[in-house]
């Protein structure tokens, strides 16, 4: 009888809990014989990779301006459309969406390095509970502003100043979703990071191929994101122990904000 009593009390207590449950999106669970996804991302046609003109605005004291001109030069290869001879597109984010449960995300910090007035890497993946490691390897002042991309606004998550060369700041990864990294001192610098709770995210290599392992079986949506191409979403079915192949051709291009910032 008492057990019944406890059960009811707990159930009553739980009623408001779904309010909290909603927040816990991803349950870490042991995946015995998960399925795998591999594939190649190709571009429909060769798109020339633009060159970003760099214009150093005069600083308060002229010595600084010279230093900055020497460090950053006057133009920079955008490295936006890296399309191999097999039309494979590099730096495409492959994101498996609405994953309810799966392996725990790896403990791997993402290093974001300000080097030669550009962010290294251009596209990266960060995992919740590990850290961003923001480095400034240039002799000049950088400030890294990392913000989550919303519909037409951006929510700043971190906004850190790195005045000295070799400076390193570590910050925990908390907010998930696609983030855009900018430097308020140099308007042409950019980087894109996808922070995720689960390991089922991948970046295509220079041949455009990628591989995601040990997915619990089930129906998923896979999103292919590239800064220069429109997003493409594919429905897939993962069967235990098998590898499903997903290949996509990116056709419609789009103009990322950095180009308008540099005036192209």
């Amino acid at each position, binding site marked *: 009888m008492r057990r019944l009593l406890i059960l009811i009390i707990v159930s009553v207590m739980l*009623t408001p809990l779904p309010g909290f449950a909603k927040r816990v999106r991803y349950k870490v669970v042991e995946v015995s014989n998960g399925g795998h996804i591999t594939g190649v991302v190709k571009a429909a046609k060769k798109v020339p990779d633009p060159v970003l003109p760099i214009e150093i605005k005069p600083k*308060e004291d002229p010595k600084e301006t010279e230093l900055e001109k020497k460090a950053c030069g006057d133009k920079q290869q955008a490295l936006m459309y890296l399309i191999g001879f097999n039309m494979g597109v590099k730096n495409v984010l492959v994101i498996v969406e609405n994953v309810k449960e799966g392996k725990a995300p790896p403990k791997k910090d993402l290093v974001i390095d300000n080097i030669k007035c550009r962010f290294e890497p251009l596209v990266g993946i960060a995992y919740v509970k590990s850290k961003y490691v923001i480095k400034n390897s240039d002799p000049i002042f950088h400030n890294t502003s990392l913000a989550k991309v919303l519909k037409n*606004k951006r929510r700043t998550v971190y906004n850190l100043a790195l*005045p000295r060369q070799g400076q390193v700041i570590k910050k925990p990864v908390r907010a998930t979703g696609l983030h855009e990294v900018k430097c308020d001192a140099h308007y042409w610098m950019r980087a894109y990071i996808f922070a995720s709770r689960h390991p089922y995210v991948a970046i295509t290599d220079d041949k455009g191929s990628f591989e995601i392992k040990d997915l619990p079986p089930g129906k998923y949506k896979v999103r292919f994101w590239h800064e220069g191409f429109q997003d493409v979403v594919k429905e897939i079915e993962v069967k235990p122990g098998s590898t499903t192949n997903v290949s996509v051709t990116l056709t419609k291009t789009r103009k990322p904000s950095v180009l308008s910032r540099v005036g192209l």
Partner: protein
Amino acid sequence: MTVLILIVLGILLSPFNGFAQDDTGKRIYNQWCAQCHGYEGDGEGYAKEFTFPKPRDFSLGTFKFRTTPSGDPPTDEDIIRSIRNGNPGTSMPAWKRFSDEEVKALVEYIKEFAPDVFEFEPEPIKIENAPPATEEIIKKGKELFRVAKCVECHGQHGRGNGKKAWRDDFKDDWGYRIDPANYTYPWELRNGSSLKDIYRTITTGLSGTPMTSYQDSLSDEERWALAHFIKSLQVERRLGISLRLKKVESIPESTDDPQWESLDWLDLPMAGQIIFEPRHFTPTITNVRVRGLYTEDKVAIMLEWVDKKPNKGDDGMPPDGIRLQFPSKIPDGSERPYFYMGDRRHPVNLWVWNAADNLGKEYIAKGPDTVYSQQKQDVKAVGVYDDGLYRVIFVRSINTGDSEDIVFETGRFIPFAVTVYDGRLQEQGNKGVISAWYYIMLEPSTPLRVFVLPPAVSLMVFFAGFLLHKRLSRKADA
């Protein structure tokens, strides 16, 4: 039977925990905050276009004024502080009227607009053992001011006119143009102007704006030194009603003549012109400083105000400028012309200077829309813009002989008012930033009676005392 009790207990309990989300927060929010911050907390209230800076959009989840490191959500005390003390320089007032419970409920309701941001428990930074302000700490701070690149946005003298501030993508997360803070005007600092406030702003940064957090890039001592230096830039604001003009031999020509620094000054708090069409609700200039002196035949008045971006009238915007207003006749009774542009029965003199042609012009105004220039121009004006600060000197002879001009007299309270224009916001004509009537007084040489009367009075009192003494002592002996 017990099952029945249990079910009843269950029903009873469920509304109880429903109680936690009762609606005092919502009621207060909708009654006193929604008109600016919007009923959905997205900053789209109907008072939005009458405020500058724009009301906070809570739904985006980014909070500028925090005691927590960059990336963390604000603590409840942070939001309570913003509600309780308001933000200087904005139209967010200090809400003292609500009880603590009400404010707590209000904070809970506000946090509901961006729930995912508040999932983590933030731990605020520690602000203690602030070193005392010493000469070399401030010098160190000045050095850091350059190293940490504050100069780029805040300018050499911290007036918020750094070169980088003028790129068109210098926006905040909400998509509005934003100006770097002007450290010299403490009453404009949104996050507070005390040493601790400045230290806190440097350490946590204002996320959502280009103001970065230096918590990791500068050590505590460095940040305290920087805070001390910034605090030392703050100007002492002297609000008052009248200004004395000293008599000197000759009027210094250039604006940075040290003689001007030695003079007494008066600060005029400015407000947008909201009385006549076109009304101006969102001015940026909040203060004009007035100094003055006079010689045997000339009067010179220097006006000083901070304008973060100079508009010379050649960039498609109207030029920056200033207008000094005097009644055309020193009023004897208490009757005066209307404080903005006079009225039909009491015309006013306008001394106008603008950055485009940098010379003084004289106008007569009998109301906001009847202004015409004078045939005989007697006012000379020279203006200089240096690192964010406009300094304009108007010089005119005390009696120009022109019937329409005011004749200055020593020892009399002469009303004056100021209208200032910042070209960047298309301010011209009636769309400007105005002040109320204030007074200048040409300090008279102390009149004779000040030397004659007091000794006479004390002599008389002495004599009366003596007389009393004589009478009483005679009575005492008798």
